[in-house]
């Protein structure tokens, strides 16, 4: 009898082990997920190919974009989030194409494609080693996504196992400004953010 019981036990054990393995297998997106470096506001966060810091995050209901003397308003069914910071390549010339806002609930919002490229935002810049340059990220999201959001920056959207920098922001739903203006500058800092339109 013990022989049969032992067989039965072995089969049950094998079934349980297989079940556990099957249900704890990581998703494909977890296996190929980028390698993350975490940081907070104002901190210089280092990834292996670049470093990034976020200095300020502002939230507004309307965004006015001023280029070449003309101002165009952009309304939204949610709010605009404007993040400013600095980035520097460490070893070779590179571009940072992918910027996302990860809300507390895990929903992602990408960099807005409504604002024209005459305003110099992160995807259009080239970063040279040894030369930090200012960086601008603009997102559009529902107001509920603002609190506890994380800014996620990577070189590209598609490369698996690439570096990624995540910065936990201090943006709050309580500080929503009525309007912000982003003005293109011809010299010096490529843009200026002005409050209240």
């Amino acid at each position: 009898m013990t022989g049969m019981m032992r067989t039965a036990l072995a089969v049950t054990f094998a079934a349980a082990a297989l079940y556990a393995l099957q249900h704890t297998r990581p998703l494909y997106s977890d296996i190929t997920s980028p390698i993350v470096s975490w940081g907070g506001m104002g901190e210089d966060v280092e990834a292996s190919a670049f470093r990034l810091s976020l200095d300020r995050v502002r939230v507004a209901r309307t965004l006015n974009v001023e280029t070449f003397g003309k101002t165009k308003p952009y309304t939204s069914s949610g709010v605009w989030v404007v993040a400013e910071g600095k980035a520097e390549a460490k070893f070779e010339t590179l571009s940072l194409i992918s910027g996302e806002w990860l809300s507390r609930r895990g929903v992602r919002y990408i960099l807005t494609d409504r604002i024209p490229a005459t305003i110099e935002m992160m995807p259009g810049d080239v970063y040279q080693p040894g030369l930090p340059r200012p960086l601008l990220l603009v997102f559009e999201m529902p107001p509920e996504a603002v609190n506890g959001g994380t800014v996620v920056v990577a070189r590209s959207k598609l490369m698996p196992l690439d570096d990624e920098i995540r910065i936990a922001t201090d943006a709050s739903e309580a500080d929503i400004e009525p309007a912000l203006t982003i003005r293109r500058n011809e010299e010096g800092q490529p843009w200026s953010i002005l409050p209240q339109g």
Partner: protein
Amino acid sequence: MTEPSRTTIRQRLFAFLIAGLGGLAASAFSFSLAVYEAAHPPRTPKAVPGEQIDTGRWLVTLRSARSGTTPPTGIPPWKPTRLVMVDMDVVNQSATPSNLLSRAVTLDVPQAALQPPTDYLDRDKGLAGHFNPGMPERVTLAWEWPEGNPVPQRLNLTINGQIYKLRDNLYGASDWFDADAVATVELPVEQAP
């Protein structure tokens, strides 16, 4: 090793027969199922304009259809083409931004396939990019109507659904995949000069 007995061969033949019958029954069953499904295609429910349709990834509310030569940007193109435009309200229900609205809303036309439509954001009077989750927007889809074909009085639109698979069949990756049509909507077309 024991000697093979005389009945073993008969037993083996019997086993082959049973296995063959089982396989035959299985293929007969699947064939008849296919024939039945072809004879009874699933009915796509009809929806009315103004009704919110859940496609899985999008919540679409069709409002109106019109035809004209001026696109929603307000700037007529240098080569005038007739456009058929459909106005709608959309909300992206998924967790990632998407710009694949034209996969969810398709036009049923009798003639040759149309070019994929262009999405316009009514708020900007410009091209629409990605739609962020949870943000309702008014969108106009504009199809270029081929020359010589008259624009119909009523448009038939099919709203296609999508399902989210946590692990797909190829890589085990998570993604949205096309599912069956969710609804069909008929819209009257307002003709503009």
